[in-house]
């Protein structure tokens, strides 16, 4: 089977600072993959390369066999909630509906199918009651689920999440993992996380990024730490 994401000898640098060196990764369709690594290790850069926001200095990136910028229709991206302006006047429903922007006709009004899809995504995330609230008034966990709903509303094949549990409490964290577990198998999921426990318990494959990238299975992560096989502290 063709890989969902394929990176071959990918290198990237900001000005003269190398961030990624000769990274080779293969991710199968339907896998739930965790990306771990120290701050500044290149996790976010790796995501931006896969999303097509950055171009590699050398090497090849393919997402579903295409160059990343052409595969965007198949991607759902869930950014960190800390990035957003809490005073921005946008309702939860509007936010989720904006996940259907690529279906928007020239005259700029969403159709019935779009609205239905948005309501379904809200229902699935347990946010139906909050749909008319301002996005900025949601709790961390609710806001994160709203962003997941926005990503899912266009029915993507690949879901990319940037630290979805970074600013939420433990109950919300459990909710988010339950949702992702339900989706795994149906969708390819790529999740950056600081949460080592999640990396071991929730995902099928772990990629450690620290300039270079190594793929591990979850139980190998434990051994890595237990035996200190890794040359620098990983987290």
């Amino acid at each position, binding site marked *: 089977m063709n890989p969902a994401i394929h990176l071959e000898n990918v290198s990237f640098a900001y000005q003269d600072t190398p961030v990624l060196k000769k990274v080779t990764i293969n991710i199968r369709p339907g896998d739930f993959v965790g990306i771990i690594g120290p701050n500044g290790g290149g996790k976010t850069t790796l995501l931006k390369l896969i999303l097509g926001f950055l171009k590699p200095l050398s090497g090849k990136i393919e997402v579903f066999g295409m160059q990343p910028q052409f595969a965007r229709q198949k991607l759902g991206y869930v*950014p960190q909630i800390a990035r957003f302006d809490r005073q921005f006047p946008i309702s939860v429903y509007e936010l989720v509906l904006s996940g259907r922007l690529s279906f928007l006709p020239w005259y700029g009004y969403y159709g019935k199918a779009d609205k239905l899809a948005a309501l379904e995504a809200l229902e699935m995330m347990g946010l139906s009651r909050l749909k008319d609230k301002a996005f900025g008034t949601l709790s961390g966990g609710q806001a994160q689920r709203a962003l997941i709903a926005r990503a899912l509303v266009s029915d993507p094949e690949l879901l990319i999440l940037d630290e979805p549990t970074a600013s939420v409490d433990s109950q919300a964290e459990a909710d988010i993992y339950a949702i992702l577990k339900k989706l795994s198998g149906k969708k390819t999921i790529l999740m950056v996380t600081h949460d080592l426990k999640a990396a071991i318990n929730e995902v099928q494959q772990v990629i450690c990024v620290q300039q270079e990238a190594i793929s591990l299975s979850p139980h190998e992560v434990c051994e890595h730490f237990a035996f200190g096989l890794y040359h620098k502290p990983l987290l």
Partner: protein
Amino acid sequence: MSFFEALLNNPLLVSALIAGIASSFVSGIIGSYVVVKRIVFIGGSISHSVLGGIGLALWLERAKGVLWMSPLYGALFAAVLSALVIGWFHLYHRQREDSAIAALWSIGMAMGVLFIAQTPGFNVELTNFLIGNILWVSHTDLYILLALDIAVILIVLCMHKRFLAICFDEEHALLQGLSVNALYLLLLLLTAISIVLLIQVVGIILVMTMLTIPAAISNLYTVRLSSMMVIAIGLSMLFCVGGTAAAYHLDWPGGATIALLAGLAYVVSLLVRIPSRS
């Protein structure tokens, strides 16, 4: 004579009110984008650089005998040019964007002052452009302003969802296949045109009032950008009509009275709103 009687007898006052109400639409709509996108400083730069265009137009008209020229054309030309220059800096030289915005701000004003200095018999009118005097708006100008007003509203009706997307989350808009850069430029152009409309009412120095205060007040009370716009339009009309009426009775300058009224309303709404939030 009361303000309403004066309206019946004074066609100039009527056109002043029409211009004020028409510009309230762009003030509320474009002002809301400007506030949530945090490009207030860009608005300031465009509005001040407009003086360069006004100065050039007056100089051409009065010193060089180009009779069809009017300050409105000069203002539009300068506003659009400034928007394009700022857009270009935003897209290609983002590190020094704010310095470029400030430079454009002062270069435009400097050119305006120099052109006006070269234009005979003008000194009195300079204040009209700086602090606004809606009474100098000609009939042709009024038609052009109304046409621009309608054009801005129509474009926004079609593009609102996309503008909302680039204001809230540019990365996501890009992933959804929107031409984020083109939309940003379009938004700047609409801002430039709106600024020219608003300058007719309150003048260059006070235009930031109308672009930010109605939107900033309504931002305190809404959860949706579209309702923020509707409230801001209403507030803007209130300030224009109320300010013009007060100015008439007190014999104060119109633009400054409108701006002061808006400013007071903002202070009051902050005092009412902020403590209840914390």
